[in-house]
C-alpha cells in the first residue's frame, strides 16, 4: 500500500498479528477457577514496562480499585491507553506509573475540571506521547481484536492529531478515497470492571459498553474486577448476555464498589464530593501526598479506601443517587 502521509507519533505496541497469535496460542483455554485477590492479580499480570489498558469511560464503570493496587505495588514505566482517561489517569499520574501514553482524552475530568497532577506529569517531559482520537483508539483495539494489523477509518485526516499520531494515510483500492489507517493496539494487560462474572471469567455488565469489548479482546492478559461473583449456572442460563468469554480472561477479582468514586450503572452514582476532594488536594503537593497516603498507600486494600470514605452508608447514598430516590426516611445512615 502506498503511503501518502505518515504521522510522526510513536507506536507503543507491536501491530504484528502473528506475534499476538504466537502469544495467544500458548494461553491456557482451560475453564478453571480464576478467582484471586486483586493484589495477587496485579502482582501476577502487571509487569513493569507493560502496556496497560483500563476499561470504562472517564469515571464510569472504571476499574478504580485496579489503579489503586497498581500504585500500591509501585508498578513503573507502563504504557497507557488514554481513551477518555480521567480519574484512572489521575491516579496513575499520582504514582507516575506510566512513562508513555496514547492520548485521546487525558488530564481532564470532563466538566469537573483539569487534574493538576496529570497535567504537570504530562508537561514534565517524562512521558512520551502519541496523539489519537477516542474512536481511533477503539478502532486500534478492534484491529487487534480482529487479528489484523490495522483498520481504516475516516477521521483524523487533515489535522495535527493525525500528524502527531502513528497513523498513515493511503488510498482505498476500491474507491480511490484517502483513508487513515491505524495500527492494531494490543495491551499487555487490561482491567475491565463489570457487574457479574463467574469464576472462570465469563463476564457481563449493564449500561454502555464504551470500548471495553474491543479492549478485552485486544489484550494479551485480561483481569476482570466485578461487583459480585455469580455461579456459572447463572451465566449459562442466559449465555447471550455474556459479553466477555472466559477464555480471554486471566483473573477474576471480586471487588464490591470497585468503580468508586465513579459511577457503576444500576449500582451507584459517582461521588462528586470525593472527586472534588481529589481535584482540590492535587493543587497542594504536600496535602496531596498525605491524601494519597490516607487513601491509597496506607490502605491494605480497596475495601479500606471505601471504609475511609463513608463505607456502606455512603454507598447506600450513592445508590439512591443512581436511582434518583430522593426523600423518604428508610435509610438509617442518611
Amino acid at each position: 500500500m502506498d503511503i501518502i502521509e505518515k504521522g510522526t507519533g510513536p507506536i507503543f505496541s507491536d501491530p504484528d498479528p502473528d506475534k499476538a497469535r504466537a502469544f495467544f496460542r500458548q494461553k491456557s483455554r482451560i475453564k478453571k477457577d480464576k478467582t484471586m485477590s486483586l493484589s495477587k492479580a496485579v502482582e501476577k499480570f502487571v509487569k513493569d514496562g507493560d502496556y496497560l489498558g483500563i476499561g470504562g469511560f472517564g469515571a464510569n464503570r472504571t476499574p478504580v480499585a485496579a489503579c489503586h493496587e497498581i500504585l500500591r505495588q509501585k508498578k513503573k514505566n507502563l504504557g497507557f491507553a488514554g481513551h477518555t482517561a480521567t480519574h484512572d489517569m489521575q491516579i496513575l499520574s499520582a504514582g507516575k506509573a506510566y512513562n508513555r501514553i496514547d492520548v485521546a482524552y487525558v488530564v481532564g475530568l470532563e466538566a469537573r475540571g483539569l487534574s493538576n497532577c496529570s497535567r504537570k506529569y504530562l508537561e514534565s517531559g517524562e512521558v512520551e506521547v502519541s496523539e489519537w482520537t477516542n474512536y481511533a483508539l477503539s478502532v486500534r483495539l478492534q484491529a487487534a481484536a480482529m487479528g489484523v494489523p490495522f483498520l481504516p477509518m475516516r477521521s483524523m485526516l487533515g489535522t495535527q492529531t493525525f500528524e502527531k499520531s502513528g497513523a498513515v494515510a493511503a488510498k482505498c483500492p476500491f474507491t480511490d478515497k484517502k483513508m487513515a489507517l491505524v495500527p492494531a493496539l494490543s495491551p499487555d494487560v487490561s482491567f475491565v470492571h463489570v457487574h457479574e462474572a463467574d469464576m472462570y471469567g465469563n463476564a457481563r455488565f449493564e449500561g454502555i459498553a464504551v470500548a471495553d469489548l474491543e479492549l478485552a479482546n485486544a489484550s494479551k492478559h485480561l483481569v476482570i474486577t466485578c461487583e459480585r461473583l455469580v455461579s456459572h449456572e447463572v451465566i449459562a442460563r442466559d449465555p447471550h448476555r455474556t459479553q466477555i468469554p472466559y477464555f480471554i480472561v486471566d483473573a477474576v477479582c471480586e471487588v464490591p464498589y470497585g468503580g468508586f468514586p465513579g459511577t457503576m450503572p444500576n449500582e451507584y452514582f459517582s461521588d462528586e464530593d470525593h472527586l472534588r476532594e481529589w481535584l482540590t488536594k492535587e493543587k497542594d503537593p504536600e496535602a496531596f501526598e498525605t491524601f494519597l497516603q490516607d487513601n491509597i498507600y496506607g490502605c491494605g486494600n480497596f475495601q479500606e479506601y471505601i471504609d475511609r470514605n463513608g463505607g456502606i452508608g455512603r454507598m447506600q447514598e450513592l445508590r439512591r443517587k443512581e436511582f434518583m430516590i430522593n426523600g423518604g426516611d428508610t435509610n438509617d445512615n442518611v
Partner: protein
Amino acid sequence: MTTYNEMEMMIVTAARELENGATVGVGTGAPCAAAMLAQKTISPDLVIMFEAGGISPDLPEMPISVGDSRTFYHASMAGSMGTIMSSCARGFVDYTFLGGAQIDMYGNLNSTAIGPYDSPKVRLPGSGGANDFASFCWKMMVMTPQDKRRFVEKLDFLTTPGWLEGGDSRKNSGLPANAGPHKIITNMAVMDFEPDSKRMRVISLNPGYSFDQVQENCGFELLRLKTLPVTPAPTDDELAILRDQVDPGRVVIGR
C-alpha cells in the same frame, strides 16, 4: 421582557438550530442544555446521542459525564462508542457541538496544547471524540465566548478539523464529503462560513453588540453579511423551560 444572561442567550440560540427529527451528538454542559431545551420546545423528536454509547435517553437531569448513567436513562439503547461513532461515520448524525481552547477562521479547533506542542505552556485533554464527531457529523457547531485569545489567527495545534485551510482543502483531505463547520455561536454574535472561501462570517449580532465589538474580540479578520440582523433574544417561554426544567440546579446557566 425577562432579563437573561449571555449563557442563556447562547443556549437558546443553539437550541433553535436543532430542527425536529434531527440527530445530535453532544457532550455535557451548554450543548447538552441546548439539546434538552430544543427537545422541550421546537424539537420533541430530537435524538440525542452521547459518544460513550447512550442513544436517545429521556434525560432526567444534566449528565455530569458523557458516559454517566443519565446518558442512557430510559434510552432506546445503551450501546458502545463503536455504535455511536460508526453511526456518525455512516452519516446518521446531523449535528454536533464542540468546543476548544482556540478556534481559527476556518472553524478548526485546538484542544491539545497551548504553546509549542513539544513543550506546551498548558497540556489540554486532546481530541477525545471531538475530531471524530467533527469529521463525521454533517454540521458541526461551536458555542464559545467571543474572546481574542480563543479566536486566533493561528492555532497552536489543529486538533479537530473545521474547513482546514478553507476553499476545497477539506474536500481534498479524505474526510467524508459535504460535512463541516456550520455555525459558531458566541455571546456576541452568530457566525457561519462563507461558502467558497469557508471563512468565518458574522450573520447576526446578539442584542447590544456591534460588529466592531465582535471584530475587536476576534484575533482574525471576520467576514460579515452586509446587513446584520439582531439575533432574536430568548423568549419568556424558552427561559422558563431552560431554568425550570433543563437546568434547575443552574449548573450551566449560573445563578
